[in-house]
């Protein structure tokens, strides 16, 4: 894995679409909105291959904790959960493709991966869009492109984003400056769960903001090049950190390892910052007993919804029990992966 590649967690492509005959979701009563769900299901499940790989789930028939699990896996968004009464999503077995229905738009189609490029992900999304448009006619305007509820998504209605780990740039307080530069270029940097979320564990999402007047191809190439530039900055900063305080950094990395492998109570926030330090250790070649992929899996595993799902629990545990369970899961994982 290249040094740049190590700093990437997941890449994601999202397309927004609306059906011409219906008002946008927030202007639909629940009966009409559920008709939208049926129309989209009918347009999507047109082959046995799709029927076998994909499942449609209606949020109004699902339990709260499962929603949390899917949210942590980025299969559903905050806004979709807000629309529990009318929201649905069609998702594949690999849990890396999700078609959200009745979020802010009728359709938010997204493909994601920790190994595929943005180009490949766009091609996948584009193919699914082509399947859907066989039976659905999209709201479209020759000048404004695909029409979306919020004009910030007009045009291609495409959002390409990459989740990256920037510990050295965070440590050296450079993220604010990067955010300013990105804004000038029509891009944005956000926390791990998108809009308004905090940057926990030095993990950020970088994505395009401008969607109108630029082709899909251009958006993807542009974001890819910009992100590579930022990752090179992180690598440079990492070298500087190691030059100036290599011993202290190594100490922090191995202390984190010690705590993760031995602690008995751990909040999700503490887990995330320790795993982030550990990830830094792997990125800076301080340790090779564990891979960045291992760490990324653990980051997801220790989140509340995923913890409950592993045990098949349907009720939310008290906070302290959760923190104890989290510590146990981490201890076991560390033992398993380091032995």
């Amino acid at each position, binding site marked *: 894995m290249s040094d740049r590649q190590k700093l990437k967690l997941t890449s994601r492509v999202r397309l927004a679409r609306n059906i011409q005959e219906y008002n946008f979701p927030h*202007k639909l009563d629940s009966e009409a909105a559920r008709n939208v769900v049926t129309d989209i299901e009918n347009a999507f499940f047109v082959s046995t291959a799709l029927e076998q790989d994909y499942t449609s789930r209606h949020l109004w028939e699902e339990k709260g904790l499962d929603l949390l699990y899917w949210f942590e896996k980025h299969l559903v968004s905050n806004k979709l959960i807000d629309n529990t009464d009318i929201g649905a999503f069609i998702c594949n077995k690999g849990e890396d493709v999700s078609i959200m229905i009745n979020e802010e738009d009728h359709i938010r189609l997204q493909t994601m991966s920790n190994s595929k490029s943005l180009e490949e992900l766009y091609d996948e999304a584009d193919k699914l*869009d082509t399947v859907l448009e066989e039976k659905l006619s999209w709201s479209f305007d020759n000048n404004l492109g695909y*029409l979306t509820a919020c004009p910030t998504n007009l045009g291609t209605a495409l959002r390409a984003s990459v989740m990256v780990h920037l510990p050295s740039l965070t440590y050296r307080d450079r993220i604010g400056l990067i955010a300013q530069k990105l804004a000038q270029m029509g891009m944005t940097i956000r926390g791990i769960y998108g809009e308004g979320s905090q940057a926990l564990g030095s993990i950020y999402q970088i994505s395009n903001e401008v969607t109108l*007047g*630029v*082709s*899909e191809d251009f958006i993807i190439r542009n974001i890819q090049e910009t992100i590579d530039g930022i990752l090179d900055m992180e690598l440079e900063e990492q070298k500087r950190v190691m030059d100036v305080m290599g011993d202290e950094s190594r100490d922090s990395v191995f202390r984190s390892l010690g705590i993760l492998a031995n602690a008995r109570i751990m909040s999700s926030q503490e887990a995330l910052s320790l795993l982030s330090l550990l990830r830094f250790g792997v990125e800076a070649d301080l340790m090779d007993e564990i891979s960045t992929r291992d760490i990324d899996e653990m980051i997801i595993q220790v989140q509340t919804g995923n913890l409950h799902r592993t045990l098949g629990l349907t009720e939310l545990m008290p906070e302290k029990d959760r923190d104890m369970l989290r510590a146990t899961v981490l201890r076991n994982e560390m033992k398993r992966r380091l032995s």
Partner: protein
Amino acid sequence: MSKLEDNIFDKLGKPKPQQECPRCGTTFREYNQTTLLGCPVCYRYFRELLIPSIRKFQFTLQHEGKFPATTTSLETRSRRRLNLLRQELSESILVENFEQAARLRDEIRDLEEMLAGEEIKK
């Protein structure tokens, strides 16, 4: 947008912020509060009021890129063809195939002129 809707828009004239979209009832004031429009017709109805705000966060007001395959109007098809040709043009310049580039440039110019003519007719 159909001919019928065009006629209705002509009769309605320019909307005021408190006027409601004829299809979904959204007002421009509502949009200013929520940044959400209610339906595709809002874009048409509030176009003049919307344009300054769209300019703030988008580079241009002309879509580039994918067109729905189901759109069958001549204009849409021509625009789609234009996008494709522009892409081919930059590719042929990149590989220094200037003969092809010249041919593509002519075809692009013809199409652009045709589309400009359509705009004037409107």
